[in-house]
């Protein structure tokens, strides 16, 4: 079910402003890829371009190619709604639907898409998704209570359950733990480890340790100065990126490779936030 993502020569614009330029990378299927880098360098923008959420913002557009399992996302005639059904997303802000109960939140993806299903079928999906998000034991007795009544960590796991209930092939996570305490964060990280066997996961994080803990590959984004477009500086396996810091930095995969800041400097400046 899980698919790989190939990104080539991706430029992303907000109106006339070029936010990201020249991104090339390959995200392997059934792996966790972390995007790291300072604020405003385009990590989230790249992530959002992977399921065409980017264009929800007025004036935003994309140039270049994104292939998911060999299929181009930005060809003519590709329906962004169909793309998003296959590529789920979890956001930084906790956003369970406030008018819905826990049960309705999980099944929302199916219900909102007007899929007719039997009660037993829906029950199965809800239980499977909540178990998948490690939330079932905590909420099984209060499925009809509002989703907003859960704690922050539970709400985020509810959002993950909602995202995996529609059985996507890829799961994008935009700083899923930034609003959570360490215990909830650890719960989400454990969950990411488990989900890895079924899904391709891309996660944006500001937390270097988290990137080191959960990811197989890491992409480091940076920008030369404010107002300049962000670029992918390095894409490598997490072990290499975090372990071999004393050696010469590996060759950057980005095309404009000569003017990079030294790797160590970039990482420390990002982690000091």
């Amino acid at each position, binding site marked *: 079910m899980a698919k790989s993502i190939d990104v080539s020569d991706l430029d992303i614009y907000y109106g006339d402003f070029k936010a990201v330029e020249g991104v090339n990378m390959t995200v392997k299927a059934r792996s966790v890829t972390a995007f790291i880098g300072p604020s405003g360098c385009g990590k989230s923008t790249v992530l959002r371009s992977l399921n065409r959420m980017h264009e929800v913002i*007025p004036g935003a557009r994309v140039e270049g190619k994104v292939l998911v399992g060999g299929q181009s996302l930005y060809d003519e005639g590709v329906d962004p709604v169909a793309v*998003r059904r296959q590529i789920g997303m979890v956001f930084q802000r906790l956003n369970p*639907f406030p008018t819905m109960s826990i049960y309705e939140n999980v099944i929302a993806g199916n*219900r909102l898409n007007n899929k007719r299903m039997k009660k037993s079928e829906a029950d199965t999906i809800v239980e499977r998704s909540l178990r998948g998000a490690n939330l079932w034991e905590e909420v099984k007795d209060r499925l009809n209570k509002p989703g907003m009544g859960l704690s922050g960590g539970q709400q985020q796991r509810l959002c993950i359950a909602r995202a995996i209930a529609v059985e996507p092939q890829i799961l994008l996570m935009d700083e899923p733990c930034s609003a959570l305490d360490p215990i909830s964060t650890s719960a989400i990280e454990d969950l990411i480890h488990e989900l890895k066997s079924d899904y391709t996961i891309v996660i944006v994080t500001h937390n270097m340790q988290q990137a080191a803990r959960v990811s197989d590959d890491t992409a480091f984004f940076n920008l030369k100065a404010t107002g300049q477009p962000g670029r992918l500086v390095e894409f490598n396996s997490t072990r290499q990126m975090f372990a071999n810091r004393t050696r010469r930095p590996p060759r950057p995969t980005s095309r404009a490779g000569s003017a990079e800041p030294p790797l160590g400097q970039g990482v420390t400046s990002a982690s000091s936030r």
Partner: protein
Amino acid sequence: MTTPIITRPPTERAALPLTTPQLPALAPLLAALMAGGLALLAGLLLAWPWVAMVVLGWWLYLVVLPTWSLLLEGRRKAVDRLMTGLVWSTFALAMLPLVSLIWQVLVRGLPALNGQFLTYSMRNVIGEGGGIYHAIIGTTLITGLATLISVPVGILCAIYLVEYSAGGRIARAVTFLVDVMTGIPSIVAGLFAYALFVLILGPGVRMGFGGAVALSVLMIPIVVRATEEMLKLVPDELREASYALGVPKWRTIVKVVLPTALSGIVTGVTLAIARVAGETAPLLIIAGATTSVNWNPFAERMATLPVFIFSSITEQGRYPEAQTERAWGAALVLIIIVMSLNLIARVVGRVFAPKTGR
């Protein structure tokens, strides 16, 4: 006369005192009594009307208490007492007309209320008796039709403005026109509806539906404004969460955005209904007045509560007392209708409000 010389360590002397002199808790009451007494005295001596005494007492209170406070407590507390006095007295001033209005309507309207008053029309009634059944029906039909017209138009317009327009030129033009429409005098709306139906059906036309059209001209901008504000309050995260599940935009609006904003929209719509339910001028022009029950809004004149009140007072004929009593009764019924609409809106709003409890 030997006063002990107290020497304190410099750190203690430098520390700011945490307690300052305070007026007694009863100070506002004392000041009010004093100001009131002075005003009463001055008023009686100079034979002023009581309004002047109240104003003088109010003014004296606003001078006496802050001055006292300034002498004892300092500037900040004095300003606080002045502002507190101002806020409370203006609040009382604002409540005064409302309370006295409701009191008057209750006192004068309640005697008129009885079974006959609510279930009989004015057909063939001269003098005592009769009722406002025909006007209640007219108001309900016309306001209901106006709601049926303006709620879909208003909500769809607001959805366009917030969800689809992306701040383009059309959106700005629509917003401007809506703002202009909010300020249209109701008589102009009535003339517009009248002119429209004269064009279609010929001169001298009178029908309830025309009144509904006139009222919806007044209602639409209110509904648009209220809905627009509510839709803007729905966080973008919810829309994105829905898009990320592969839900199309229109379905996101119908199933996520509108339910989240529903309580506010319902409140806005009810306020709009309450606002137009009491309109007189446009209905006077296009719906006219009659003494009979008329169930058909598409033909003939139709009585409404505001117009009934208006004509009972202006055309009193030979039985002015009966007419006046019926006018007050109708006013009470109109207020009850509007108030119960507000209550219903609150209940509905609470039922639909996003749930946060455990």
